[in-house]
């Protein structure tokens, strides 16, 4: 009853075109392995093409049937438990909603399609992009887009997709360049999304390509050539083929008895997980081995009962004391809200750790750049040597314009602009003092 999602036909170009691309890549020194892999993909694509024409026919039939989709959906709704009768279908419209204005559509409709439709006018190259990237992206993604800590890696990983742990980056994995523009422009930098200009975005996208060795630093990326740029893994994707490869085989009546001769435990949980009363989890490696565990056969487990099983005590005792929250100070509460802007990089409070930025406990009275185990930029190291100490005034100045106050800081944050925000954050951070 549920319909196959395969109505949408594969957007794969001709086979000849794909071979051309394969040769193109081989001459660009991507290595024999890649070439073989691509040939293999071409074969697969060929196989898919013949099934694609069948699918096309089926799809055409289904398109006519689409007019019935509404009625069918209602029927489907009637099949399960009917919580309410299906909503009535209007002949005309209800006339609700108002017409969207051109300016409104322009403000929100910024997505970019693979062929480049939707791109705003603009241009940029890796030379410029390197600077913008260092300023706005490198604190999380690394100077060369190689990723810091657990933050996403954006470059490298070529020829690893068939390895045990493939490194999926913009360079090795992403099929369309449009996606890079689209995502960076709308969703990055993390914590300050939507603040990049089109030119900055073109420059950053060029820099990401450059750090993947896909272009040189003079290549000018524009709204005109972005849509036709060919990514390394453009042909690496096939459309969901579970219906053909899996569903057909996995619809047989299942076995109920003597389905296997014997069963052994081959692996135990890698991590044991503790669930403390205060929330979250603590996980640790499980030292237990599979040796000595029973094996199972149709006759039952290979197990000698030593004693009557003992009841085990319940695993978790809930915490009984409730925390008394001191919400007297509205300022601190306001500061907590403002701190959301910092949370992507900083922790504060009990158990706070260094993240992208240092923890901010006991900040006032603390020397600049003095948190153990955090790698500060040179400007903070100099401040430490000079013995500069954080107080409310210096924090206010720093947070108003971080890059101006600490020239060369790697804190990618443009500053607090709204009136009252700085006072609020001061009060909030002071609450975590000693």
């Amino acid at each position, binding site marked *: 009853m549920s319909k196959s999602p395969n109505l949408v036909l594969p957007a794969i170009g001709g086979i000849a075109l794909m071979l051309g691309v394969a040769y193109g890549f081989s001459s660009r020194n991507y290595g024999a392995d890649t070439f073989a892999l691509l040939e293999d993909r071409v074969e697969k694509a060929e196989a898919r093409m013949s099934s694609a024409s069948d699918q096309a026919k089926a799809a055409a039939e289904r398109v006519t049937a689409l007019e019935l989709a509404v009625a069918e959906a209602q029927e489907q709704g009637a099949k399960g438990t009917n919580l309410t009768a299906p909503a009535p279908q209007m002949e005309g419209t209800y006339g609700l909603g108002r017409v969207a204005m051109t300016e409104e559509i322009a403000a929100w409709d910024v997505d970019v399609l693979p062929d480049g439709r939707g791109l705003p006018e603009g241009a940029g190259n890796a030379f410029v992009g390197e600077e913008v990237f260092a300023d706005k992206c490198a604190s999380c993604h690394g100077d060369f887009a190689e990723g810091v800590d657990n933050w996403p890696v954006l470059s490298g990983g070529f020829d690893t997709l068939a390895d045990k742990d493939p490194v999926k980056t913009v360079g090795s994995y992403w099929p369309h360049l449009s996606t890079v523009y689209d995502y960076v422009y709308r969703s990055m930098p993390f914590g300050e999304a939507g603040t990049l200009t089109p030119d900055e975005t073109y420059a950053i996208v060029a820099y990401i390509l450059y750090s993947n060795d896909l272009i040189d630093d003079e290549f000018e990326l524009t709204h005109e050539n972005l849509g036709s740029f060919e990514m390394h893994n453009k042909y690496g994707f096939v459309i969901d083929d579970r219906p053909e490869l899996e569903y057909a085989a996995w619809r047989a009546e299942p076995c109920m008895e003597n389905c296997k001769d014997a069963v052994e435990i081959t692996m135990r949980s890698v991590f044991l997980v503790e669930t403390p009363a205060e929330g979250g989890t603590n996980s640790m490696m499980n030292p237990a081995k599979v040796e000595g565990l029973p094996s199972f056969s149709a006759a039952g487990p290979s197990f000698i009962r030593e004693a009557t099983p003992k009841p085990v005590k319940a695993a978790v005792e*809930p915490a009984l004391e409730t925390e008394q929250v001191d919400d007297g100070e509205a300022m601190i509460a306001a500061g907590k809200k403002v701190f959301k802007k910092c949370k992507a990089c900083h922790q504060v409070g009990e158990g706070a750790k260094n993240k992208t930025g240092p923890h901010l406990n006991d900040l006032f009275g603390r020397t600049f750049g003095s948190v153990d185990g955090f790698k500060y930029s040179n400007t903070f190291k100099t401040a430490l040597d000079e013995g500069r100490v954080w107080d409310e005034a210096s924090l206010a100045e720093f947070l108003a314009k971080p890059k101006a106050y600490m020239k060369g800081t790697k804190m990618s944050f443009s500053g607090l602009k709204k009136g009252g925000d700085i006072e609020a954050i001061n009060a909030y951070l002071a609450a975590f003092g000693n």
Partner: protein
Amino acid sequence: MDESVKPTSRRAFLKGTAAAAVGSVAGAAAAGTPDPLITELQDWASITGAGVDETPYGLPIRFEADVIRRNVEWLTASPISSINFTPIHALDGTITPQGCAFERHHSGAIELTKGDYRLMINGLVDRPLVFTYEDLERLPRENHVYFCECAANTGMEWAGAQLNGVQFTHGMIHNMEYTGVPLRTLLNEAGLGATRDFEDKWVYVEGADASSNGRSIPMEKALDDVLVAFKANGEALRMEHGYPVRLVVPGWEGNMWVKWLRRIEVTDAAVESREETSKYTDVYADGTARKWTWVMDAKSVITSPSPQMPITHGNGPMVISGLAWSGHGQITRVDVSKDGGITWETARLGKQGDTKALARFYLDTVWDGAPMLLQSRAMDETGYVQPTKDQLREQRGENSVYHNNCIQTWYVNAEGIAENVEVS
């Protein structure tokens, strides 16, 4: 259904009750001592309790304080773009309370008021429109129960048994009763005359948060059962689930259920956004990847016993309980094995009927105190049978990350303690 209590296990049943009587001192008058909880006057039976003015909106009683969403810190770089897990081990029935239903955000959960809410429909429509929240509540609405499963649920298990707990292996799922307007009603308001042949037409949906998560949905699905929802389990959506409005895409991967839904664009191609290329695509052993793998195939798991729910009562009668679901429709049958897949018994489905919703199953059985390898296997209305880990790996290798609907195994030892394991 006493099919599961077969004649052969009658003897075990008797043996079991004898042992249980010794084992469970708590509820019984063991060794002839009267139970003071009964014989002595208790405070709660004498002093009065909480008044009606004390808790205008209640949370579970504090004794249930451990039944909460939990995250695993090292899984992601920041809790703001991260995931937590539903405590499915401790729940029963099928509906997930909103307050403990898993969360996945790409840029944190935002506060958006109904007054500030706007929904735009643009692209290949006759009239691009803007709706307010109030407009949505004026359109005919429907109620449906659906599961929402993250495509990465059970994803770590591709590399073998990883985290010890069903909350962590299978907890990226919830099941709620949604109230909302069918998406087709809204598309009809904007008019699809411009796209009369729906072939290769898509609906691109986007959220209002800083990640502006966007996904492309083929028109056929958009006109079928997709809902623009504003209530869950009878009350407003919670902030973390997209208050005031989210998309509900029944049976399809959770990432498409865009929260804080702000824009719907009719297009003639998939946008191929980051979340449908870099993420939520499945890499196979040879390095090629499947895309547009939207449907969540049939899957089930035993929630109790499980690592967080050991058997504490000794041997004797017990209930093996779990959840089953399929993005293709109804669950028609669930089988349970206690010996790692050699022998299977058919479980009792707690409730039948909902399509693309969680089903609860029970196997009412007797434990003889011997170790077990517990597994469950779901079948849906298409006849699809939930595959084993080996079947999946044979098809897809181990690098897929997403869409792992394998049969899960718990090893229960003679003490009643359960562990996540993999079996031959």
